[in-house]
């Protein structure tokens, strides 16, 4: 059947056809669509897990118990799962286990750019690297086979330009399930020192066998054309080479770890000039240095930053530096009617130091809002709040999204309560995982399969973690929110404020836009400082509102001190739109 699949979807389709029975993940661009695609199959048990560590462990256990299983995440998600990852090479699997990780060179939607190939070497787990969606589809069943033949997890590394490229693929549509029996085997599955030492011995022997496989397999293939110029490349870089140098010889690495030493030496001796083309870290480059292949020319180190593009190839071959282009693209901005905006307006007026976290609300850091002052990784809305407030004293606030809080905020809150930290943490509860496209999480009461489940009550959870106060408020009541934050900051206690209002991408009902009274406008433009895409300055310096995109949230109305923006008569001053939840 002809399908038009992204790399994410293709790896999922390939895994499904190869008899995948269980999959677990936490949303993260550009890997989200792997699990979203798998969740649609009635005969796959697919879950959004609480975080990547949990996802990895549940999926690995399912494989050990005999069902072909899959974990997927973005590169920084794998960091959260490093603990189980590093020892999973020791225990091995039973039924096949695939670890799909999507890197984000160029940092389109991440907090850093790291190269997961390094992690495969560090964790001693073989890695496959497809270059396009077709290969994603083809490599998934191969990965399961390697996993079972060698009793090891197998990593499949994607990058943004593989994960989010779509290609037409003719799929088989068949499905073969071969379940394995689970046997109690303490020496294999109980990693205490004696067992772990013996497993490490076995692992090193296994890696030598995997290196032989890597030399043998057609995943690593030599394409001999003109011998005057040769390239070694993996992933999407291979396609850029083929695009720009179609007549060159290429060693394409579909399995970069363990590195195919023999094949690399053979290829290097067969070409006159040799170039390495790879995104991010000098992974292949270092392997060639280890092998003493001196003729291989690597990219200038400036190309380790950002993603490659086909037009960069001639500069890489010439050994020149990368030309850093000034970013000219439009910056993203919180949507019209976004409840996060109201919280940032309140925080800005309080001049609070704000520890932020990862989600749409990180956009609160951008001017003119500028009301979020740190963002490192998942959970730091709570832990940076903790560290900041211990060092700075009062007027420190932490902000963290609902999904992020469940992912990594809970332990930080327990820590803050245990160590008697004082201050305010605001949970920006828009009742979804918004940034990655509105996935459910435990506090939504829905599963990845779209079924209802037990709903995690954040209020009860926070109290159980040791918060002194838990308040729930509609963030659009900005003056009340401001007063509440101020009051709680003045108390010597640890407070949670749940600012609850649904994401505009899931709750699309809207109210009439405010009216503008030009006679009252003093052109102070405080209304524009709320940074809403629906309000703008007109050519004559007055204010215009886009009635099609405005949701009637009235945040701009509250910003105007002169009454130039007026709530429409369709709602009385105190009337709340019906869709907003009541304060508890």
């Amino acid at each position, binding site marked *: 059947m*002809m399908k*038009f699949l992204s790399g994410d979807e293709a790896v999922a389709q390939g895994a499904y056809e190869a008899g995948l029975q269980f999959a677990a993940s936490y949303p993260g*661009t*550009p890997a*989200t669509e792997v699990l979203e695609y798998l969740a649609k199959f009635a005969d796959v048990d697919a879950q959004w897990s609480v975080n990547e560590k949990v996802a990895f462990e549940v999926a690995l256990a399912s494989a050990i118990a005999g069902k072909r299983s899959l974990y997927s995440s973005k590169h920084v998600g794998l960091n959260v799962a490093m603990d189980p990852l590093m020892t999973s090479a020791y225990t091995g699997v039973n039924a096949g286990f695939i670890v799909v990780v999507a890197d984000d060179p160029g940092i*389109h*939607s991440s907090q850093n750019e790291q190269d997961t190939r390094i992690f495969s070497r560090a964790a001693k787990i073989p890695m496959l690297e497809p270059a*396009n969606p077709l290969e994603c589809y083809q490599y998934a069943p191969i990965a399961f086979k390697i996993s079972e033949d060698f009793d090891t997890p197998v990593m499949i590394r994607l990058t*943004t*330009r*593989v994960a*989010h*490229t*779509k*290609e*037409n693929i003719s799929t088989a549509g068949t499905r073969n399930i071969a379940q394995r029996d689970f046997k109690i085997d303490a020496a294999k599955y109980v990693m205490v020192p004696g067992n772990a030492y013996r497993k490490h011995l076995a692992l090193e022997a296994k890696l030598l066998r995997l290196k032989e496989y890597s030399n043998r397999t057609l995943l690593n293939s030599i394409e001999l054309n003109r011998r005057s110029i040769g390239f070694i490349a993996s992933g*999407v870089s291979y*396609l*850029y080479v*083929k*695009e*720009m140098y*179609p007549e060159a010889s290429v060693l394409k690495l579909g399995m970069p770890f363990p590195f195919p030493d023999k094949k690399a030496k053979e290829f290097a001796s067969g070409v006159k000039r040799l170039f390495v083309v790879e995104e991010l870290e000098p992974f292949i480059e270092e392997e060639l240095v280890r092998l003493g292949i001196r003729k291989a020319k690597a990219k200038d180190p400036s190309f380790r930053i950002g993603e490659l*593009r*086909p*037009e960069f190839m001639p500069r890489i071959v010439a050994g020149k530096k990368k030309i850093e282009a000034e970013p*000219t*693209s*439009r*910056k*993203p*901005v*919180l*949507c019209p009617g976004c409840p996060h905006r109201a919280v940032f307006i309140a925080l800005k007026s309080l001049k609070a130091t704000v520890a932020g976290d990862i989600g*749409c609300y990180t*956009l609160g850091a951008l001017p003119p809002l500028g009301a979020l002052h740190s963002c490192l990784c998942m959970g730091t809305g709570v832990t940076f709040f903790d560290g900041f407030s211990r060092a700075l004293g009062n007027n420190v606030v932490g902000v963290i999204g609902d999904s992020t809080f469940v992912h990594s905020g809970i332990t930080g809150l327990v820590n803050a309560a245990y160590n008697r930290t004082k201050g305010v943490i605001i949970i920006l509860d828009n009742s979804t995982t918004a*940034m*990655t*496209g509105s996935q459910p999480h435990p506090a939504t009461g829905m599963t990845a399969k779209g079924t209802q489940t037990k709903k995690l009550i954040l209020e009860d959870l926070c109290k159980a973690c040791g918060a002194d106060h838990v308040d729930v408020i509609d963030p659009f009541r900005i003056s009340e929110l401001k007063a509440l934050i101020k009051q709680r900051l003045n108390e010597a206690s640890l407070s949670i404020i749940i600012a609850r209002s649904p994401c505009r991408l899931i709750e699309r009902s809207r109210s009439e836009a405010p009216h503008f009274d030009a006679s009252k406008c003093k052109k102070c433009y405080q209304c524009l400082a709320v940074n809403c*895409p629906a309000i703008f300055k007109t050519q004559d310096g007055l204010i215009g509102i886009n009635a*099609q995109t405005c949701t009637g949230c009235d945040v701009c109305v509250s910003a105007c001190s002169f009454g130039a923006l007026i709530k429409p008569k369709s709602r009385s001053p105190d009337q709340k739109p019906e869709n907003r939840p009541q304060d508890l």
Partner: protein
Amino acid sequence: MKRTVPKVLKRTVPKVLTTNVLFCGTGGQGVLSAAEVLSWAAIYDGYHVKKSEVHGMAQRGGSVESHVRFGARVYSPLIPEGTADYLVSFLKDESLRMRPMLRSRGVDLTTDLEKAHGTIEEKKFLNSYLLGVLSRHVPISEASWFLAIDTVFAKKNPQGNKDAFLRGRGEMK
């Protein structure tokens, strides 16, 4: 709504070569679904197609671009700079930024954007109108375009999109 006599279509790119179409605009304008329709139309016409774009944070009102390449066999998912055959822009500022992507004799369809805004009452059909304009240039059959619109807009008024497409194509007044 009457259809005029079909015009002879300009085929600026031979069928065996790769055709590169760059779409640009901002989140929520229909840029990505336009790229999806072109991709499906090319698939129905028997091409190998690659489409590349970025999801996530960029979609919150930020710049959106989608690269669509089709031909006998497509390698790079990204259009190499200076080789785009067509630039389909939903926003004038963005097309200025994207100009260097266009080859020297490439066609910038931004000129049709104003006309599109004047012709199309409902913003949601703007992308189909622009696809109609593009369809005058690229070697894809009308039947495949219609199939593609049915595929992508199955639940979103395919007939309205086809009408807008035909207006852009210049076959319907």
